[in-house]
């Protein structure tokens, strides 16, 4: 019988062959892209309707470097658009993280907050962020503010839920031990509960950063002038499906990089965890 631990022991062996690992990771994307290229070139659909990956890459290249102005007004403006989106994403994400962690710790730790805050928040949670657009415009007007608000909405609830879960599931023995050592409520919260909840909080942050990037497309439907989501919508209005796909790829790529960054922060903050988890054992 093969145990999970035995399976994980294979991983360090694989790490000694980074090239083969890189190949493993690339197989599925390369197959997908090759299939897409073949299908797009088969003539089943007009090329303008389903651009081949090479055409999308060309559009992305011109959007980034502006070499032949085939993306017209967007030629060479990718950096500006990516920065505009990133500003909205990280603005909304930072706000969501701060408030989500604060509210999550409060609800997880205090029955008073749980009773007063949680029902309202749980009622707001299932409302799709896109449905907040009219209110966002009424409250915040046009341009960046409503966009940041929508990103905030998308990112807030994953952080909140994971923080509540993290705080509520802290090992009770740790809290009891702290209390026996004479720690005050505040010391228990900051010295034991919060650090113990961090793995769960980071899980929430990782989900939230993905949601935040997803929400850029919704957020930039409102009157902004730049951004990857804005370019996506604007290109759709003019049937530029190559640019639509280039915008989707850009959002995916930046979302992936943001997650990698968050994972790096998590590895530093939760370094103590590596010795105690299956992931840590696997390296």
């Amino acid at each position, binding site marked *: 019988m093969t145990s999970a631990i035995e399976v994980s022991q294979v991983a360090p062996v694989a790490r000694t062959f980074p090239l083969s690992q890189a190949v493993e990771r690339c197989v599925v994307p390369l197959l997908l892209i090759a299939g897409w290229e073949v299908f797009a070139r088969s003539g089943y*659909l*007009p*090329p*303008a*309707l389903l651009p081949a990956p090479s055409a999308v890459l060309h559009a992305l290249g011109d959007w980034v470097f502006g070499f032949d102005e*085939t993306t*017209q*007004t967007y030629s060479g403006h990718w950096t500006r658009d990516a920065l505009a989106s990133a500003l909205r994403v990280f603005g909304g994400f930072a706000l969501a993280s701060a408030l989500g962690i604060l509210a999550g710790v409060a609800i997880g730790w205090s029955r008073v907050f749980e009773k007063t805050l949680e029902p309202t928040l749980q009622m707001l949670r299932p409302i799709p962020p896109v449905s907040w*657009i*009219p209110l966002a*415009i*009424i409250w915040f*007007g*046009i341009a960046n503010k409503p966009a940041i608000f929508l990103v905030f909405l998308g990112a807030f609830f994953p952080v909140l839920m994971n923080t509540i879960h993290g705080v509520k599931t802290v090992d009770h023995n740790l809290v009891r031990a702290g209390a026996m050592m004479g720690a005050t409520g505040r010391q228990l919260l900051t010295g034991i509960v919060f650090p113990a909840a961090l793995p769960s909080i980071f899980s929430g942050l990782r989900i939230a950063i993905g949601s935040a990037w997803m929400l850029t497309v919704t957020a930039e*439907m*409102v*009157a902004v*002038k730049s951004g990857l989501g804005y370019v996506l*919508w*604007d290109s*759709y*209005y*003019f*049937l*530029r499906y190559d640019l639509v796909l280039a915008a989707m790829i850009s959002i995916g790529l930046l979302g992936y990089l943001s997650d990698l960054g968050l994972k790096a922060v998590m590895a530093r903050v939760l370094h103590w965890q590596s010795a105690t988890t299956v992931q840590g054992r696997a390296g």
Partner: protein
Amino acid sequence: MTLAAITVAAAQAPKIKLGFAKCAHCLPMSLTPGLAKGVEIEATGFNSGNDVLTALVSKSIDVAQVTYLHYVTALDKGFDVVAVSGQINGGSECISSNKLALPGDDWAAFKAVVAKAKAGGQPLKVAASRGNAQDIHMRGAFLKQGVDPNKDIQFVNIPNPADHFAALQREEIDMVCSVEPFASQIRLNGAGKHFVFPYDQAAGNLTNLIVTRSDVVASQRPGVQAVVGAVVALNEKLSADRGPWIDVINKLTGLDKAVATEALKNAAPDAAIHRSQTLAIAAMMRDLKYISKDVSAEVEKNMEYSFLEQATGKKKNDLGY
């Protein structure tokens, strides 16, 4: 006709999938199944003209109601679209903010305000949904009056016309060129004042067009003919009585009948396909870099007047050619 004969006739009738957008001018298309003779129309409402056009070119539907701008854009991208009928024109209105206190239809006052704002370093903020008929109408009308929308004002793109109201009410913009019924809603709620109907330019008041694909024309000619017949019948009906139109807006959007009635004052049923104005739209779109090449030849080539000629009994020279 016996029940059996009706059943056989229904089974033999061509089936056409028709798509239309959910705007005040477009919604009457939902009435075409009831007016169609010799064709079974399955009418589907879409959120936007882009969705309708995408469904058409990807062969999910057979006939689409779009705007003249969609038609030009589709040709620019090399899509197979054939214009077979007009539908309803109008629907654009420039509304100024109350704060601006601009008299209606007073271009001289407008130009003075534009010049003053520009000189003061705070150009007038004029909003529209980039790339739609209202955007083109506004740009054309402004240019004709000597106001360059790219240099003299600050253009604000608000893609969803439903957001125009709040932006004007919050005074974040000074003017908006919106589409009905949103324009009427803005005015009736006191968030702005009528400035102008921007039709005094080369594109006129063109708005909606019925398009299909050449493969549908080849394989389902009687079906397309019947759809065009239904559109012509619908237009005649709406020209005589706006009641059903108001009802359909009220039913499908939940908008107040007063708003629907007001919106239809700025609408003109028109089944003709206007060739010269379409060419003007294509030229404007190219100047604005909304399209990448000159599509004049394609615009003319893909206008198929024969359906309209048969449905109306008129010659194409009387149908906008």
